[in-house]
């Protein structure tokens, strides 16, 4: 049986797993964006908080993803087996690229523009929200794009803690030494990543201001 016929025969399951995968990614990314972008805005004028937040986010990123899923299982409320734990782990993982890009984007504005803004009598908050943020938007989106692609990949591992998604096929494929099962997980995951990359890349170019 060719891979193609395998795909056609199991299209229902593959589609369901892809949808489940997408759901994990979208919820985790929404959480990471809702935390990462406002946190990045807060860091611009707070040096101490910046060192701590960027430090913690960097450390989170160094934890191997499988271990991060494992660590979270015994944590009350967010832990346990299933989607919730997986989403939290994915969001933590996506946080660094978003936070770092937000911060770098907000702080790498043309000094002449910032000087004028200050000299015109804009308050720090006005400068942050009306000048820095819109000018950093393309940069922030680049961080979101990187984080999304990472998350689509890492989310396959979430199947190890029972969160479902395309990883289910991959783990089963490894266990049964079946390249058809492996590809049934890997190909849709790769396609999702490519699609997300194209879409967010397009948005990013639209938002770039020169």
């Amino acid at each position: 049986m060719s891979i193609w016929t395998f795909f056609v025969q199991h299209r229902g399951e593959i589609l369901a797993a892809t949808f489940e995968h997408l759901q994990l990614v979208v919820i985790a990314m929404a959480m990471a964006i809702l935390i990462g972008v406002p946190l990045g805005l807060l860091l611009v004028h707070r040096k101490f908080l910046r060192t701590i937040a960027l430090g913690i986010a960097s450390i989170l990123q160094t934890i191997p993803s499988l271990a991060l899923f494992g660590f979270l299982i015994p944590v009350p409320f967010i832990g346990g087996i299933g989607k919730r734990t997986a989403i939290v782990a994915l969001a933590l993982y996506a946080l660094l690229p978003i936070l770092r890009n937000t911060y770098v984007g907000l702080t790498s504005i043309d000094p002449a523009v910032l000087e004028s803004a200050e000299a015109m009598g804009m308050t720090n908050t006005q400068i942050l929200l009306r000048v820095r943020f819109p000018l950093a938007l393309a940069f922030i989106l680049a961080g979101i794009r990187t984080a999304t692609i990472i998350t689509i990949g890492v989310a396959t591992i979430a199947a190890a803690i029972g969160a479902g998604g395309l990883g289910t096929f991959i783990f089963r494929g490894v266990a049964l030494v079946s390249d058809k099962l492996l590809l049934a997980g890997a190909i849709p995951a790769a396609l999702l990543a490519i699609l997300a990359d194209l879409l967010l890349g397009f948005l990013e170019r639209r938002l770039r201001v020169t």
Partner: protein
Amino acid sequence: MNPKARTTSENLIEFRDVFFSAHRGATGEIISGVSLAVPHGETLVLLGRSGSGKTTLLKLINGMLAPTRGEVLVQQRCTTDWNLIQLRRSIGYVIQDAGLFPHFTVAENVGLIPMLEKWENARIAARVEELLQLVGLDPTEFAKRLPRELSGGQRQRVGVARALAANPPILLMDEPFGALDPVTRTEMKREFSALARRLRKTIVFVTHDLREALYLASRIILLESGHIVASGSPQTFMQIDHPEVRAFAASLAVHPGA
């Protein structure tokens, strides 16, 4: 030749024995012992080489820097007593590359301070149109453009219009024509001089170009390493016997023409 600072109600800006160094206790002072007074309606040109402290003096006026010693008064009030936001909104500021907001249209750039001051939309639109005409830009053609769609000279005009938006009594200009080509620069100089006479603002203008200083100033102050070394009207300035004045005068001889 230090002009004695007089305290009269006519002085919009006044420096009283002002010192400034970048770090507290630092040996090298950027400004040392500057006293000067700018009466209403004067166009004061601060002339000096790079690093002589001209820009620092400007930033001491709008509170972007605070003096380490002495005091700076704007409208009879010490800058450290002002609400800095209010102080800056009563002072227009124009810098070399205009510093326009690249994500705002020309109209949004010019109308920003009125908008932050919560003017009504119709009033903002009318003011923007008036100002663009004032600086020689046709509003119908330019209002909707982004800064990147303008030439250097046009950007600088927008910069001037933006600085004038809330009708501040004081205008600070830091080498506003410095990045322009010589032809545009001469045009802008001529137009700005006419505009300044018409608006009767108090202007402090920073440049390292003696020709520009002579053309625009009602008074020229020459700075050298944070000190005022010479001061005079365009008519008397060249006669001042000081090595730095002669050095600047020599710079005129090297570039004949225009």
